[in-house]
């Protein structure tokens, strides 16, 4: 599963025919060497911290998930019926692999796992997210982050 052909209709056609905005090639940032990589994860699962207001469809803001938030207090407020939840229900790391990232830090594969990860609402036009994405990026830079792993759902 997960090749486009494996996704059931009518979702398959919706996904295949999605009008993706065009982007010019972005000049890549020169990556830090592995031992100096300070890595944050950005998800589009609409993650919130338990008790927070759920994110809404097409919401263009973002949420922060700090390292002191327990796995059990991270909820997915993305309400699309198009993706599986049962993996996430068993193991947060299927969507937000912060435990794996911490392991890479301990193994010296990266310099540091970020103390804060970020969540946007998926299925929102990326054009609508530009301002908040740039703001989140500046927030990450201020915290010393230089590398981002983007994880869709």
């Amino acid at each position, binding site marked *: *599963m*997960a090749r486009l052909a494996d996704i059931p209709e009518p979702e398959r056609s919706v996904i295949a025919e999605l009008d993706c905005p065009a982007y010019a090639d972005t000049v890549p940032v020169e990556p830090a060497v592995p031992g100096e990589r300070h890595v944050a994860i950005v998800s589009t699962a609409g993650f919130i911290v338990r008790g927070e207001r759920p994110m809404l469809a097409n919401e263009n803001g973002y949420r922060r998930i700090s390292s002191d938030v327990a796995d059990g207090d991270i909820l997915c407020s993305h309400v699309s019926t198009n993706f599986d939840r049962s993996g*996430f*229900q068993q193991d947060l790391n299927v969507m937000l692999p912060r435990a794996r990232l911490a392991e890479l830090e301990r193994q010296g594969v990266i310099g540091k796992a970020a103390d804060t990860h970020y969540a946007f609402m998926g299925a929102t036009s990326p054009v609508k997210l530009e301002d908040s*994405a740039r703001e989140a*990026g500046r927030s990450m830079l201020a915290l010393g982050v230089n590398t981002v792993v983007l994880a869709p759902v």
Partner: protein
Amino acid sequence: MSGLAHYLENEGLATVIVALIREHAVQMRPPRALWVPFELGRPFGAANDAGLQGRVLRAALALLDGEQATPMLVDFDEQAPFADGDPDWRFPGELDGSGVIAEAASVLPLWRRAHQRFGRTTLGISGLEPPAAVEFIHRFHDPEPMPNPKGMAPVMRARFAIDDIKAFYLEAAMAEGGHPSSRQLQDWFWGGTQAGQMIRQFQQRARSGDDNNLKLIAGSLVPAERTIAFLSADA
């Protein structure tokens, strides 16, 4: 998601994206993408498989090594285990067939067991406890609906209560472990539970009623393929 990669890279961050829809990555040309052949909702492969999750993460970060010719799109060719599920899987309990409230009560012990097994629950965005979430939807259109706690409009509470009900049942379904596929779980929930039937009826009523707010959420309550199957069966 690919759009975010462009914006973040422009701000000075080196990005790698774990892409689930290869075609979208091809169109949107993020600087560095690792396409993974996993189900939507599982970008890092499989639950409780730290090895696979770690290999995906390492492969994504490896795109930052070496020459940076972009856009870069690399395929991760390892498959997730148990993607086809377990043909012997069955719901690990007995559902009370006397009504949806009684059914939810019969699910509760298993859900508590699942909570212990997983060390957490993903239920909670509606702010209602599981049986209350079921009752909230069950009575939503009654002359005397269940009181809506402060802090969320009734329609939004209903929207999120439905997600919590699904989480309640699916977590309970996995209380004894095993490797059911998402399709097996969905088949069971939508075809074998009164809660699934209640949500489907709620959706039909939302669609046919005159409350525009309910109409807005109706499309995101039941997977479209299931809605079509139900409508075909009803015709």
